[in-house]
């Protein structure tokens, strides 16, 4: 070695100059790896070129700042990059083309801020807006399940605070490996699903409960591919007066760092999230996981809302991935300024942290405000009164450079423009259509056992034991809770009444169908959208906005990218088709472990409005002798279904979404609910008609009878089990009082609907097959037993 790559500067603190000017390609790659930058050779070359023009080498602070800003996590290179498809078509940005594309073409006047800020904002009522954000925190949760999940919630709450909104509800959707996974199959470095599960659930509850934000909606999904890649989606909804949504920072404003102190926790979190997990992740990336302190954030929330109400600050953003580096850089960039930062002003947890570590640390519970000079003292006072530290650490400047000082020395000087123009990523996608077949087996003569087994399967079984460890009622505004009825049935959506003086509600629901993605990611995405929307519709929600959260494998591998492209295409088509714009989203790529890639998983969150929460509908059966209608057509679509899964098969006929039919069904259900002729409504999803009917019955503690011969069915194979367990989208079960029959039918005219049964006086649950003989004959108590036994003691 003749060239020295790292040259220690002769200063009273630790600062290295990195010799990129003399580095060859191999050296550049080495630097990226050794410094944990996760940058490609092309990106390293761009850095070398930039500094060649400046005629000097970068410092470690500069390289780290660039590494953070250009990371997949912060910059979303894949979604913004150029992708070549196998047929030669070129997509210049997945994000702009498909996700934002749908939103801009729909151009809904109630979308106030989309894709621009920390969270999407839609109009609610009068001066109020609703802010929503969903994040993923998979990588940290794989290493430290409790801390990873807790800081996931903490981070997404700060996103909501970052648009001046007051958090009113949290959501969490989790994906784990099977809890009974064989220990001997676990590769080194991967923790057992049960360990991860317990830690994640405890972490989510800890943060939300301590902060006093109700956790109201979510899902838990088990899949073999999640053994090596745990999936943790954390969401938060907030409310804000739109007139207080102030983002107008100017040169001269002070940068005020508020909240917790900065330490070595969370170094390289974002670059860590932009790499695959390996056996060494635990050892190498342990510092990447942050430490949660919800009480600090609770105090922070109070102070921030006070600053907002007095309009003392000119902008706000959270410190999440990339720490100060991202927050300062993005603030300067957004307002067309430069900035100076004095790193030695940052309050530290302990001394002797290198400047670059201070700058990129992801220590939690911190936010960055910009404050006009005249207001600085008052802002500091507000935080002081809440026992929260607040420190001016720099200012925005006229010149468009980022200048960082440490103990009087300049340790970084970068052009903001350069920092935000990384080389465009070019990737190629490959679209593989796997060959699947429909399984071939005889129709069982009695389906009672199958139904009970499906109710007990982990993905359908009651999650009550878990969800009750989250406070879903704090703030006292949860109008429709996660559970309803007499036996805690699963609500389709949660409803929050955020304003004391208004009956208007926020309806929160989600859709997730990872198993369909194994057959076709396009229909998986379409189904997730349909499911999220119909869950919202089922309780009476409308004017729906969507959030997309992708969890995918390594996008540098063409097949993973191909499936991502397919899912994005579906997002565009169905968001536009349903008239439901995306308002925010996030992608987590590189979810790969020694066990392979994650099953492509798209979470769709739907946020609707209820004009009057007194009219919302829960899914539990209400009264004996009421009629049960099905709205929507059932197809031979058991690909990826729970029923096939029970038999160890995947199948081929994945549920599709027929836009015109779907929209007609949804409009009809909304009309019927508004007319007041609906007593209960439940969407049909995993486990199909049989499961939905059983859930309604057990929730209401009332028996039910269903006649399959009356179900509108379109399929080549006419079989009881297919009608019962097909998972066709866009369907609803509706309970209607007899005397409202005509009225209801008028409301749903034009859809495929039929009265298929009635609520019984006793507790028998009976399904009559196509030949009008009972094929399921059981009782509500047995349904409850089956549904609750799987996850009751954990």
């Amino acid at each position, binding site marked *: 070695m003749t060239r020295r790559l790292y040259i220690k500067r002769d200063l009273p603190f630790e600062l290295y100059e990195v010799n990129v000017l003399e580095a060859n390609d191999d050296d550049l790659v080495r630097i990226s790896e050794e410094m944990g930058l996760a940058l490609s050779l092309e990106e390293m070359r761009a850095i070398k070129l930039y500094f060649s023009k400046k005629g000097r080498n970068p410092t470690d602070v500069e390289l780290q700042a660039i590494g953070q800003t250009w990371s997949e996590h912060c910059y979303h290179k894949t979604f913004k990059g150029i992708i070549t498809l196998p047929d030669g078509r070129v997509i210049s940005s997945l994000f702009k083309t498909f996700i934002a594309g749908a939103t801009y073409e729909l151009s809904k006047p109630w979308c106030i801020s989309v894709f621009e800020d920390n969270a999407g904002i839609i109009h609610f009522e009068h001066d109020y807006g609703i802010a929503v954000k969903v994040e993923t925190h998979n990588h940290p949760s794989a290493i430290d399940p409790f801390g990873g999940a807790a800081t996931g919630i903490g981070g997404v709450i700060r996103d909501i605070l970052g648009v001046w909104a007051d958090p009113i509800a949290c959501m969490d959707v989790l994906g784990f490996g099977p809890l009974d996974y064989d220990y001997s199959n676990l590769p080194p470095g991967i923790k057992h699903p049960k360990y991860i599960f317990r830690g994640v659930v405890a972490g989510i*509850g800890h943060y939300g*409960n*301590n*902060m*006093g934000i109700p956790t109201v909606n979510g899902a838990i999904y088990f899949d073999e591919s999640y053994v090596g890649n745990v999936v943790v989606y954390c969401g938060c909804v907030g409310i804000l007066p739109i007139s207080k949504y102030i983002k107008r920072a100017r040169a001269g404003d002070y940068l005020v760092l508020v909240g917790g102190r900065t330490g070595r926790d969370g170094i390289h979190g974002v670059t860590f999230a932009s790499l695959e997990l390996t056996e060494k992740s635990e050892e190498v990336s342990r510092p990447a996981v942050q430490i949660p*302190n*919800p*009480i*600090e954030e*609770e*105090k922070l929330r109070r102070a921030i809302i006070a600053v907002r109400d007095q309009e003392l600050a000119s902008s706000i953003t959270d410190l999440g991935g990339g720490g100060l580096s991202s927050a300062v850089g993005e603030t300067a960039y957004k307002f067309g300024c430069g900035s100076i930062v004095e790193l030695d002003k940052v309050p530290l947890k302990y001394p002797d942290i290198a400047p670059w570590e201070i700058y990129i640390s992801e220590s939690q519970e911190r936010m960055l405000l910009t404050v006009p000079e005249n207001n600085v003292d008052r802002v500091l006072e507000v935080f002081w*009164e*809440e*026992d929260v530290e607040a420190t001016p650490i720099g200012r925005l400047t006229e010149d468009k450079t980022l200048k960082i000082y440490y103990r009087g020395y300049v340790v970084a000087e970068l052009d903001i423009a350069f920092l935000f123009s990384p080389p465009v990523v070019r990737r190629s996608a490959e679209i593989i259509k796997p060959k699947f077949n429909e399984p071939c087996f005889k129709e069982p003569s009695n389906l009672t056992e199958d139904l009970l087994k499906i109710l007990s399967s982990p993905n359908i079984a009651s999650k009550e034991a878990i969800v*009750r*460890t*989250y*406070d*879903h*009622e*704090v*703030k*006292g*505004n*949860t*109008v*429709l*809770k996660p*559970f*309803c*009825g*007499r036996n805690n049935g699963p609500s389709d959506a949660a409803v929050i*009444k955020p304003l*004391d003086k208004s009956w208007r509600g926020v309806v929160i629901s989600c859709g997730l169908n990872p198993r369909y993605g194994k057959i076709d990611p396009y229909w998986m995405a379409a189904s997730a959208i349909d499911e999220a929307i119909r869950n919202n519709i089922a309780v009476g929600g409308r004017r729906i906005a969507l959030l997309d959260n992708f969890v995918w494998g390594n996008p540098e591998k063409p097949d993973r990218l191909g499936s991502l492209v397919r899912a994005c295409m579906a997002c565009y088509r169905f968001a536009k088709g349903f008239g439901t714009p995306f308002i925010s989203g996030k992608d987590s790529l590189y979810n790969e472990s020694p066990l392979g890639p994650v099953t492509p998983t798209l979470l769709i969150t739907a946020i609707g409005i209820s004009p009057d*929460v*007194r009219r*919302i*509908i*829960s899914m*539990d059966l*209400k009264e004996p002798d009421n009629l049960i209608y099905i709205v929507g057509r059932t197809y031979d679509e058991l690909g990826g279904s729970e029923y096939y899964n029970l038999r160890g098969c995947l199948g081929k006929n994945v549920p599709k979404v027929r836009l015109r039919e779907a929209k007609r069904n949804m409009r009809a259900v909304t009309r019927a609910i508004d007319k007041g002729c609906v007593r209960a409504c439940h969407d049909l999803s995993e486990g199909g008609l049989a499961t939905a009917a059983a859930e309604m019955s057990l929730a*209401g503690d009332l028996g039910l009878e269903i006649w399959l011969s009356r179900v509108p069915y379109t399929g080549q194979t006419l079989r009881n089990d297919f009608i019962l367990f097909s998972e066709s989208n866009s369907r609803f079960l509706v309970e209607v009082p007899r005397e409202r029959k005509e009225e209801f039918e008028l409301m749903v005219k034009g859809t495929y609907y039929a009265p298929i049964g009635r609520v019984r006086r006793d507790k028998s649950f009976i399904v009559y097959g196509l030949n009008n003989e009972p094929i399921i004959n059981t009782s509500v108590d047995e349904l409850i037993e089956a549904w609750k036994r799987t996850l009751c003691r954990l």
Partner: protein
Amino acid sequence: MRRKEIKVCIVRVGGTNCDAETKRAFEDLGVKAFIYHINELTKRKDLLFEHQILVFPGGFSYGDHVRAGAILAKIIMTRIGKEIRAFVDEGRPILGICNGFQVLVEAGLLPGLNGISNYPEAALATNVPSGYRCMWVYLRHENNGKCVFTWLIPRGMLLRIPVAHAEGRFMLPGGREEKILASLIDNDQIVLRYCNENGEPAEGRYPANPNGSFYDIAGICDQSGTIFGLMPHPERAYYGWQLPDWTRMSKPPKYGDGKIIFESIVKYVMKKF
């Protein structure tokens, strides 16, 4: 005293999180409620006496470190202990909900076997079965009229109110439980007990008794009846639409069972002051 003259002081610190809905419940009854940070009450010692009712709401004060409520209890008794004692002596009522109940016990204000104690005389220990749980429970009103927070509630009446905590198991000192219990009963300090839907005692059995509390105790008052602590959250059962099953009812009630507790104390203050 007229209703609109009544002022309620709701105390908060880092980690308090049920202050807003508690304020809302009081204000719905036409009284004025204010939320103060403990720093403010420390700074202005006379502030407390502008109020007739003092409330410690739910939450996780100071992260529930050490033991739930322990730190806030010490801070209060150190910083404004004198004022609190005077407040109690004047017969002004104090309410502790959930974390607030934990605070009152840790501060020695409850059960108050011989007046205010310098050390905790009871504990709200970790739940059995263990873990945080958010669920609706049934409570039986057992007080004979001493507790000023429940005097409007007929004895034996059932209330349905949710709990949400990990540390709510009411315990008395080992070996002396029965003796102390007898004195609590004699002094009419037992206020609310967990029971099943039909009003039968839970007898320690989960889920009717959600945390394993001794003698199914959900709420107690001091010997004067003016200090009351309970684990369930009446402010979350204040309105009818907060009920877990209001969607089943053809005509949901306007209010839930929590209201009568707030109503009782307001009416008491109107009468007394």
